[in-house]
């Protein structure tokens, strides 16, 4: 028999009241853990969707101009030193495969630069001279029954392109999103649409740590007199996206924390009732030689016991609830098993125990401060 044992027995003496207090903690733990997991899964989902473009700068024309000329691209190339410069244009156009008509996004990239930007899943890269094109993985997957596949002939305007390759899935990017698009060599685009200018320039920085210096160098070279180009730092965008999803997680966890605080108040209430009911008993314990600190310990253990029970049950249920949450809202329950998600269950449980003990502190202190003479006389 120990003080912990005594606390456990007192908790089970009023089992209904204790169960209700535990239910509060359970709900609080589930709320924190699942909302945390949900927020974290959203972050993870963004992380998966956005290709890792941390080493990429995107140079686009400043407001007022719409295109970048060949000369400007040349200037950028000189400004960035050994980093790779990939100019591209994009447009949307009607296309047809056999009898089927449709529309698609078209990216035009100089043929020699395509391999460094995109991976081909099957087939080959198109050449500058030929009339070959690549199709994005999602476009290929969605249009297979329409005949749009490797080797098919695609008609754009009055010209025909042969699909020489299918791209690997790339995900959402800040530069180009080729998954639903057709990629053609710039030379073909230039002659087909009779255009020599580019929409944007992608700069692949050789060393990620130089990204700020390269950005600076482009801006110095191009924007000497007036703003000719905007240089977008994808790492910065990525950081702000993650900061945003991070705040979503904090917000959601905060909502969970509120429910746990409510649970804490109910523990406080239960403990205060327990102290009031047991004033006489505390008087007896004190008179036969139980120290203040020992009385305090007894009541803190009681709160700890409620907290541990709540956290354990809440932890298990959080796992189940987290599975449902991620499966329903995020569409992929795998995110639950990511260590950063599972951490939220631990976090929720720890918060549950801490809240319980913190709520038990005042009642325990009150019990310990009782005057033994008055407590003994209490009926």
């Amino acid at each position, binding site marked *: 028999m120990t003080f912990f044992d005594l606390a456990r027995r007192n908790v089970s003496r009023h089992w209904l009241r204790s169960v209700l207090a535990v239910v509060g903690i359970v709900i609080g733990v589930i709320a924190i853990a699942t909302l945390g997991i949900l927020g974290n899964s959203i972050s993870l989902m963004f992380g998966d969707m956005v290709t890792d473009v941390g080493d990429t700068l995107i140079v686009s024309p400043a407001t007022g101009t719409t295109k970048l000329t060949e000369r400007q691209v040349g200037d950028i190339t000189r400004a960035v030193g050994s980093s790779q410069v990939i100019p591209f244009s994009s447009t949307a156009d009607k296309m047809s495969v056999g009898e089927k008509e449709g529309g698609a996004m078209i990216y035009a990239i100089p043929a020699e630069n395509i391999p460094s930007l995109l991976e081909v899943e099957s087939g080959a890269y198109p050449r500058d001279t030929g009339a070959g094109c690549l199709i994005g993985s999602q476009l290929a997957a969605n249009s297979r029954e329409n005949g749009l596949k490797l080797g098919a002939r695609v008609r754009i305007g009055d010209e025909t392109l042969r699909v020489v390759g299918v791209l690997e899935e790339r995900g959402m990017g800040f530069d180009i999103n080729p998954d639903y698009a057709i990629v053609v060599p710039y030379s073909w685009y230039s002659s087909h649409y009779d255009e020599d200018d580019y929409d944007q320039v992608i700069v692949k920085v050789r060393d990620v740590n130089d990204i700020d210096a390269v950005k600076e160098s482009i801006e110095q070279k191009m924007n000497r007199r007036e703003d000719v180009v905007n240089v977008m730092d994808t790492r910065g965008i990525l950081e702000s996206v993650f900061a945003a999803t991070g705040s979503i997680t904090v917000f959601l966890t905060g909502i969970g924390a509120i429910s746990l605080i409510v649970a804490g108040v109910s523990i406080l209430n239960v403990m205060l009732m327990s102290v009031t009911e047991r004033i006489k008993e505390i008087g007896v314990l004190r008179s036969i*030689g139980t120290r203040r600190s020992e009385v305090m310990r007894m009541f803190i253990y009681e709160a700890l016991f409620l907290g541990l029970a709540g956290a354990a049950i809440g932890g298990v249920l959080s796992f189940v609830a987290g599975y449902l949450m991620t499966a329903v809202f995020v569409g992929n329950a795998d995110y639950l098993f990511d260590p950063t998600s599972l951490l939220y269950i631990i976090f929720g449980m720890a918060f549950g125990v801490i809240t319980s003990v913190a709520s038990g502190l005042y009642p325990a202190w009150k019990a310990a401060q009782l005057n033994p003479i008055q407590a003994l006389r209490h009926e």
Partner: protein
Amino acid sequence: MPVISFEHVSKVYPLPAGDVVALDDVDIAIEAGEFVLVMGPSGSGKSTLLNIMGSLDVPTVGEVTIAGNRINGMDDDDLTLLRRDHIGFVFQQFNLIPLLSVVENVEYPLILKGRQNGSRERAEEVLEAVGITRTHFTHKPGELSGGQQQRVAIARALVNDPDFLLCDEPTGNLDSKTGTAIMDLLDRMNREEGKTVVMVTHDPRMTEYADRTIRLADGRLA
């Protein structure tokens, strides 16, 4: 040296309506092995005397020594440890802990002194000495009769081998037959074990058990 010694002890309770003098210049010395009754009408200061003897309270003026320890100026923890190690309390309402079984109630003061091997055996031994049968050891106090509960309470008071038993109307909640049995038990502890017993009571019949009686009136020895 007396087990309990009061020298010029006064206890004053300051109240808004004016100070109340509960004890007024009291001198008492109780020697080891004595059986002493404390009697007096309500408001005579019996409870205050009992509280100070039990180290639950300290005097306003005067010197009090309990089992060789001067209690003036002791802090709460020192007083608590003094109660734990030197005083055995027996209450009118038994005051057993309802959460604990009979044997655990008796074992409790031993556990307070720190984990010791054999505390359960010691508790059982004392319970048998006060006349509780083994079959009752695992019962909860509420399942026992009043007389049995008081025997358990006496066992709890004795288990730490205190310097004296401090009994507050120990037969007050019992019928006369059971009360006599409890008095016989206390008397036996006094005569055979040499336990010092201090007992507060209203009942004049108890004087036959006592070596002497301290009478209080209006906070003074009468």
